[in-house]
């Protein structure tokens, strides 16, 4: 009896926060859903009404949309690949006992503290700029034509910038995982005749799987919504070469001022995120259990 009543009390006490959280999530979702089926343009507010799936169909018929989906996936996949590969390499490097290890680690983590628009501006103007940029100067020094990064390779440039920003996060998570590997296991592998590559392949990498899973899951959540870096550098262009789904929604909402279409895009983004989450959890979620 006592357990039951205390359980009831617990539920009653948790209820308000559960309610607030639910409203917090459900109301915006419901409103987005509502607007996604409405004609609602800020430039002609007097014309309104139900339009069925017209807003969704506009997306599916737009060639830009499929490009945007591909770009979004390329951004997520590209940044994940770069941050994990380089994150492991840098973590292995700064795990070595070197002089000034503390300073070195702070330097490696530093990019994470730079705000996304600032980071993107730095890259655009100081590195990738065809006249003033460091890369252009290097190219000219080698007697080559400077590469027009943001014009010729807009998506790759954005991936590079975002990867630079997220590399410290991946490095940090992987480094802490690396430090939890018992040195005796590496010594045992060494005694067993495993060379440096064998130790990495059979001991270190399996030990890192859980950390890599965490990096993939967390980064995917944030990378799906990347916007500031694109807005600061390419504005989704040239044409729509570097437009991602969030950027396309932004263009509909703020530039075209079409709230109905933007809402439909938002719902598509939610569905896309859920599909990716489903496959991620099915594919690698089991690594989270020890």
């Amino acid at each position, binding site marked *: 009896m006592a357990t039951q009543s205390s359980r009831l009390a617990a539920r009653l006490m948790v209820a308000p926060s559960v309610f607030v959280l639910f409203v917090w999530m459900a109301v915006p979702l419901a409103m987005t859903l509502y607007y996604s089926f409405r004609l609602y343009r800020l430039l002609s507010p007097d014309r309104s009404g139900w339009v069925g799936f017209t807003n969704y169909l506009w997306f599916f018929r737009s060639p830009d949309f499929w490009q945007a989906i591909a770009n979004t996936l390329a951004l997520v996949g590209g940044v994940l690949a770069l941050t994990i590969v380089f994150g492991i390499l840098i973590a292995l490097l700064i795990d070595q006992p070197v002089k000034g290890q503390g300073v070195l680690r702070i330097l490696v983590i530093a990019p994470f503290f730079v705000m996304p628009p600032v980071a993107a501006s730095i890259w655009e103007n100081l590195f990738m700029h065809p006249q003033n940029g460091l890369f252009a100067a290097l190219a000219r020094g080698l007697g080559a034509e400077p590469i027009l990064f943001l014009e010729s390779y807009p998506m790759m440039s954005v991936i590079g910038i975002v990867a630079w920003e997220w590399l410290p996060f991946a490095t940090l998570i992987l480094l802490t995982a690396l430090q939890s590997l018992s040195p005796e296991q590496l010594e045992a592998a060494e*005694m067993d005749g495993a060379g440096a590559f*064998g130790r990495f392949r059979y001991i270190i990498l399996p030990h890192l799987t859980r950390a890599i899973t965490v990096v993939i899951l967390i980064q995917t959540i944030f990378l799906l919504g990347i916007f500031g870096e694109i807005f600061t550098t390419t504005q989704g262009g040239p044409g729509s070469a570097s437009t991602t789904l969030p950027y396309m929604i932004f263009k509909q909402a703020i530039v075209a001022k079409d709230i109905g279409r933007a809402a439909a895009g938002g719902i598509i983004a939610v569905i896309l995120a859920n599909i990716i989450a489903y496959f991620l959890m099915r594919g690698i979620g089991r690594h989270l259990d020890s």
Partner: protein
Amino acid sequence: MGKIVLKQIRKSFGEVDVIPGIDLTIEDGEFVVFVGPSGCGKSTLLRLIAGLEDASSGKTEIDGRDATNLPPGRRGLAMVFQSYALYPHMTVRKNIAFPLKMAGMSQAEQDRKVEQAANVLNLSNYLDRRPAQLSGGQRQRVAIGRAIVREPAAFLFDEPLSNLDAALRVTMRQEISELHQSLKTTMIYVTHDQVEAMTMADKIVVLNAGRIEQVGSPLELYNHPQNLFVAGFIGSPKMNFITGEVAAQYGCTTLGVRPEHMVVSSGGPWEGVIGLAEHLGSDTFLKVDVPGLGVLTVRGSGEMGLHHGMAVRLGPQEGRLYRFGPEGKALA
């Protein structure tokens, strides 16, 4: 074949000489135990032989071959670590097969050797489990299995039993001894437990502060300790040391009497009060406070009806005395 020769092996970490220079020969097929208090350099010495530490100077020979600069994987030695160091993400089968896989052996050959090792070690039913699903003793066996499949020149054990409970430790001790009887491979075993040293070793190396104090068979060390350190370290309970006038009567600086060579009798030369009596059934240990000599430990038979607070007379068995000179060296 596993003859290991160390020549003037020295190891220092920065300014600190952990091992100031050791010469040691380990014959093929011997069971050698390195024993000493913690921090005496016994584990470092083992790691030097394994190649996990580089010697600051000196030479290591394995099978007559200079192995000083060989990496651990190419010395032909296998090691069992204190924490077992099993690979947690691999099954028992893969753990045992790992050194074979690294050696590039065919899958069929690997399977055959793993089965064979599993039979010897009673692990056949656990081959598809992971280390986390095994008990301490089973993990220990997997670690040994991983060592024996390679057919190494010598086995190195680094305090392998210290994580097991007392009963299991006795069983595993016997298993390792039996393994040595059947494989006849050189084994080097590091421990701080002198019971393990006495029961398992063909040859004990007593280390203290990075120096070899004495090398010899267990009974040699027990019967003829060369100095005070070995006398105090080998034997349990510890040997009684008596200094001062009484020692001078026997013509030495320190007189050593093992507790088992102390006799309680009314004719004994020393008189004292029992401070503590421990009745173990088979034995009775007495701590007797003798004025002028300090607290002496006496080992008597289990039926001894003596208790705390009783006054007793006791003395040493003549002929079982150990006499040490001013520098702690044994006198002949």
